[in-house]
């Protein structure tokens, strides 16, 4: 009966194409707007590393101004300074830990055939790759000894490897970064965590870096941060060493703490460390060191903006307005066919059979509206891409979102169509047969 009802629904839509197109268009428009905002919102609020998000902790030490918190409400700075980083790296409590910052290098391929280009880089300790589960095409990351021994090693992104080495296995080959030779130890796959949770200071949706070098090279090569550097008091900085000794914060720090026990131990460790520093005259604020997991970290850093939430709400309100219009159009359509409904009732159809027939028609309208909505959402996302820089990586519809769009279209049209379909099914047939 379902197939037959589908056949009747298709015929009915074709019988009055203008009305059908109006309804499909209204649903399509509502779904298109909803899916555009929902896609952006979903990707913004996506958990980028669900399998580990509860054991990875951003480390914050409150080294800030005694008179004013770094962020509201009473948030410690989101980055650490060099001195504290060095102290924390000595702890053996975390299963893995990473100190890192964003930097950049002029890259020169070994044959000097291509002009040098500027590549964004991440200067990081060795655990970065395993801790954040970075996938590799060739080779892998470096080990802790490379940091310790200040070895000039590099991990390339797939894109950089494609540019410099034509996509071949470049492990063991060398290239120049700022005129210094670095040996390639690994090439990552297209790794694209969204949001870029491990460094929300430099754009929540920024692209991953194009290459990675050991944190151990910071001091000998005097590597500079390309990211945010913040301080709260005037400091005399005349040399690179002055900068490293300053209270300025510029290093992101993450610890992998697999259970509550290690978390408590690490919290005690950093609290003890800060307590010791207080005795030296540092850390003028009350003790306020925090370990924050990935999901909370994204919430605190407002990865999903209030504007996005409001926009999402408004888009669903718009869908509701579209659906209200459809209720009217469907009522008009079904009541316009009351003669046929009366005839079917006279020939033996029950209320339920008429309701089923009408709902199948509503469902078909919903699905067609959903398909139109997806096309509009695709166009809308292209518009977002053109209008807003930094959102390029958010604006793609995946299979899951396609199904969600069709599901919302089907469900919302059925909700909107329930009353008109029910009302038409309840019409008394006797009075309507003569007018059919």
């Amino acid at each position: 009966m379902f197939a037959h009802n589908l056949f009747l629904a298709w015929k009915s839509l074709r019988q009055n194409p203008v009305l059908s197109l109006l309804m499909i268009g209204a649903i399509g428009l509502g779904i298109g707007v909803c899916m555009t905002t929902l896609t952006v919102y979903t990707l913004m609020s996506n958990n980028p590393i669900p399998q580990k998000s509860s054991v990875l902790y951003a480390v914050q030490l409150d080294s800030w101004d005694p008179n004013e918190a770094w962020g509201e409400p009473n948030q410690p700075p989101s980055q650490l300074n060099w001195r504290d980083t060095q102290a924390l790296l000595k702890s053996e409590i975390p299963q893995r830990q990473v100190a890192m910052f964003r930097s950049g290098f002029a890259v020169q391929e070994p044959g000097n055939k291509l002009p040098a280009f500027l590549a964004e880089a991440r200067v990081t300790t060795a655990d970065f790759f395993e801790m954040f589960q970075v996938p590799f095409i060739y080779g892998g990351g470096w080990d802790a000894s490379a940091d310790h021994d200040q070895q000039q090693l590099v991990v390339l992104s797939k894109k950089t490897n494609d540019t410099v080495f034509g996509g071949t296995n470049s492990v063991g080959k060398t290239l120049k970064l700022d005129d210094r030779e670095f040996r390639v130890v690994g090439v990552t796959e297209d790794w694209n965590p969204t949001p870029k949770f491990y460094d929300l200071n430099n754009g929540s949706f920024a692209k991953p870096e194009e290459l990675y070098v050991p944190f151990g090279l910071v001091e000998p090569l005097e590597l500079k941060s390309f990211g945010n550097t913040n301080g709260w008091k005037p400091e005399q900085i005349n040399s690179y060493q002055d900068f490293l000794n300053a209270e300025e914060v510029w290093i992101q720090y993450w610890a992998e703490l697999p259970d509550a026990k290690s978390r408590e131990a690490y919290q005690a460790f950093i609290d003890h460390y800060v307590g010791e520093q207080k005795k030296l005259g540092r850390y003028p604020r009350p003790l306020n060191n925090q370990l924050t997991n990935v999901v909370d970290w994204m919430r605190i850093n407002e990865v999903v903006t209030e504007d996005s939430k409001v926009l999402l709400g408004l888009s669903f309100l718009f869908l509701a307005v579209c659906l209200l219009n459809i209720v009217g159009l469907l009522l008009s359509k079904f009541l316009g066919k009351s003669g046929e409904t009366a005839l079917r009732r006279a020939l033996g159809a029950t209320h339920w059979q008429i309701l089923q027939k009408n709902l199948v028609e509503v469902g078909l309208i919903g699905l067609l509206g959903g398909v139109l909505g997806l096309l509009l959402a695709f166009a809308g996302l292209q518009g977002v891409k053109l209008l807003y820089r930094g959102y390029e990586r958010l604006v793609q519809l995946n299979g899951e979102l396609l199904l969600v769009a069709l599901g919302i279209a089907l469900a919302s049209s059925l909700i909107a169509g329930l009353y008109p379909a029910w009302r038409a099914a309840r019409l008394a047939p006797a009075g309507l047969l003569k007018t059919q």
Partner: protein
Amino acid sequence: MLQMTHISKVFRTDLVQTHALRDFSLTVKEGEFVAVTGPSGSGKTTFLNIAGLLETFDTGSYLLDGKDVSHLSDDARSRLRNEKIGFIFQGFNLIPDLSVFDNVDVPLRYRGLDGKARRQRIEAALEQVGLASRAKHLPSQLSGGQQQRVAIARALAGTPRVLFADEPTGNLDSLMARQVLEMLEEINAKGTTIVMVTHDPELARRAHRNIHVMDGQVSDFTDFSQALSARDALAA
């Protein structure tokens, strides 16, 4: 086949109430061909709607094929309509965007018959009304008489025990009206009970029995069965 006893039906609005049927009693035997006549507003259509289970009544009792239908649920009445009753309407009441075949198929779908059984019944019914070759046509491609024959085929396909016809020739010219009437007589001759509402006295005279309805009550009976038998004997 059909036994109505002291049926009454009142239509109420905020301002007025109309007694469509008052103390209406009628019995139609199995295999009878009964014509129901009466002026407009006399209650003929209300009688037909109640008899065809399209409308409920306020008081009285109604036995259809021996079954008391007074207190049946709407779904049960729908099923009974589907299984035991066929309708023929003045305006044919075909679904315009369905083919002849699909129109005849409508009641059979609601009965839940499988595809093969439905096809056999539809082909037999269309054969019986002489429209087997028009199965794929749309109603708009047929003449009025042909459309009414499709409606008859739709009623016949369900092998009803009783056929209710509401002015079945009202929209047809005299030639086509005669053809349709002959078809109804043929169906009746095979045992199907027919109750036909008509304004046309000539048509009414072809029935076994004529019931005149006035002000919602049966006002007169005319039994033509003896006269018809005599006519048939003379013709023979």
